[in-house]
């Protein structure tokens, strides 16, 4: 076998071994070097895989040479490759940024462990996206979750420990619900391979154990996804985690859960079971709208900006699930493209906040007063990201909302389009509040220490901010691939 054929395995094994080597390091900077190398290799591998999938169709890799459905299969299709690309690109952008920020926020003796946990988390997230085995997904889910709990608990504030504990409880309940669902499916079908499951479930039809499994899986994944009202773990976890962790998780972790949602609702159970005869779209639409408004309104009243953006994340996840609930070509494309768009803009926003925390040591709104004069570039990134959250034309946020609105119109739901616009207006309030404070208030911290962050932190932010503009204007790459993935997902509906 050539190296190219081994790429699906390398995508997971490289970060896993990287984590192992990092665990043996004592010096944080050495561990950072390894994490950097691995993180830079990841987008190369996913890029090759994505190109291969787009031109030649899905890749199937048999782990250990055992043919599916008996052995574990790694399966990369359009949606999977799209997600792999997203996770690894964000990982590669975060790593140069991480060094200075981690050095400021985490004590020297724990830095090597930090990078170990980061690489394990990356392993888990990439693993979920690449594997074609339902139980393997559970294992990767737990690899990423357990390392996430540790990463969150590394925050400076003692409340980081509490939020990590709360997340551990909720996350484990979610993962256990997932295993229960898989257990029910396995006892009905006798297989764990996703492709095989799809075929056998369509033979059995919606029998009672299958529907029970659907319910368990949906609740379990919704917990990981932070779907309103199962989002209570998310705001605290994001607010008190180290800045790098917040930026990384906000851009990737919930997106992977959305991917699982798509995988199970559309592929495994099949659109004909889930979206015809079951009230799944209605439930999703109601919860999504509640998230869009409820979480946005709560965000308006937050004084900690990290927390505010965390609530905004819950609202943005609402847009993604709204697209899933619409379940038509345009709506779902909006949801899928919002995966990557939201990752870009929230990554940029949290990195900008992390940069302020690096200089000022706080994420409270009043400490941001007039800071735009001292850190103009960082705050320009924040403003761009904010504009994108609002959905200003020319940014990626507009692209997603446009697709969602057209999807709603295709269904003839005018009211939903108005709700989309109205919820954007709420985000104008919470983003506008911060923008007003950073640009128009007199400077609070007059000391000379507050200035632009080092170049290694600045460049990743600027790249993400540029991407929010670029992909807001030229959508052929993002929306094009999302459209192809959606065609695959919706294949069973017509």
């Amino acid at each position, binding site marked *: 076998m050539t190296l190219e054929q081994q790429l699906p395995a390398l995508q997971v094994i490289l970060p896993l071994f990287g984590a192992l080597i990092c665990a043996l390091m004592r010096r944080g900077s050495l561990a950072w070097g390894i994490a950097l190398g691995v993180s830079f290799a990841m987008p190369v591998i996913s890029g090759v895989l994505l190109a291969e999938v787009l031109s030649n169709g899905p890749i199937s890799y048999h782990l250990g040479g055992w043919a599916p459905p008996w052995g574990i299969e790694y399966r990369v299709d359009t949606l999977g490759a799209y997600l792999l690309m997203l996770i690894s690109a964000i990982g590669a952008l975060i790593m140069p940024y991480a060094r200075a920020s981690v050095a400021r926020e985490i004590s020297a003796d724990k830095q090597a462990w930090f990078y170990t946990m980061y690489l394990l988390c990356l392993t888990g997230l990439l693993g979920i996206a690449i594997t074609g085995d339902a139980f393997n997904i559970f294992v990767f889910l737990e690899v990423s979750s357990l390392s996430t*709990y*540790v990463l969150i608990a590394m925050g400076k504030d003692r409340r980081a420990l509490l939020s*990590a504990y709360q997340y551990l*409880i909720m996350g484990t*309940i979610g993962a256990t619900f997932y295993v229960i669902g898989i*257990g*029910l499916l*396995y006892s009905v079908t006798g297989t764990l391979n996703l492709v095989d499951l799809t075929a056998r479930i369509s033979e059995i039809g919606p029998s009672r154990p299958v529907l029970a499994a659907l319910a368990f899986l949906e609740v379990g994944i919704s917990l990981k996804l932070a779907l309103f009202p199962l989002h209570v773990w998310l705001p605290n976890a994001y607010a008190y985690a180290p800045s790098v962790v917040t930026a990384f998780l906000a851009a990737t972790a919930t997106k992977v859960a959305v991917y699982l949602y798509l995988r199970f609702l559309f592929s495994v159970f099949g659109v004909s079971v889930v979206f015809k005869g079951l009230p799944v779209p209605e439930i999703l639409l109601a919860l999504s709208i509640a998230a869009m408004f409820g979480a946005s309104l709560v965000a308006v009243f937050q004084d900690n900006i990290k927390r505010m953006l965390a609530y905004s994340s819950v609202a943005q996840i609402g847009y993604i699930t709204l697209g899933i609930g619409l379940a038509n070509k345009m709506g779902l494309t909006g949801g899928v493209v919002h995966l990557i768009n939201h990752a870009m803009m929230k990554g940029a926003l949290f990195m900008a906040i992390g940069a302020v925390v690096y200089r000022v040591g706080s994420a409270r709104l009043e400490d941001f007063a007039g800071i735009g004069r001292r850190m103009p570039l960082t705050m320009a990134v924040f403003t761009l990201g904010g504009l994108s959250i609002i959905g200003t034309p020319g940014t990626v946020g507009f692209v997603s909302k446009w697709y969602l609105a057209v999807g709603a119109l295709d269904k003839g739901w005018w009211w939903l389009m108005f709700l989309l616009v109205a919820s954007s207006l709420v985000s104008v309030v919470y983003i506008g509040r911060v923008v007003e404070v950073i640009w128009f208030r007199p400077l609070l911290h007059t000391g000379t220490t507050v200035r632009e962050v080092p170049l290694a932190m600045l460049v990743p932010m600027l790249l993400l901010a540029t991407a929010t503009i670029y992909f807001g204007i030229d959508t052929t790459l993002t929306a094009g691939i999302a459209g192809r993935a959606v065609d695959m997902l919706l294949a069973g509906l017509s």
Partner: protein
Amino acid sequence: MAVFSEIVSHYNHWITIFLMVSGLYIVVARGNMVKKLVGLSLFQTSVYLLYLSPGKILGGTPPILDPNFAVYSNPLPHVLMLTAIVVGVATLALGLALVVRINEEYGTIEEDEIFPVKDDE
């Protein structure tokens, strides 16, 4: 009578459901962080039973090729649960480690006493 035998013959599932629900109840109802973890562990453990009991076939043997035996029990659930046990142990260990750190920082592990504490941002 038919209903009764239906219930009794599925006793393994009833035990599973009882363990599952009581574990989940403890997680929700208890304010002590260690007790919550005990409940969580119970909840996870119930899943092992959910997987293992349908894997057993009455009169089935381990899946070893032998002309004398034709009915085999499914070994895969055991392997899956071995993995799940490892995950469960890791989760419990991490949870307890977090509780130790919380106790060091707050001086208590009762949620009723921790949540009223207001830290400055």
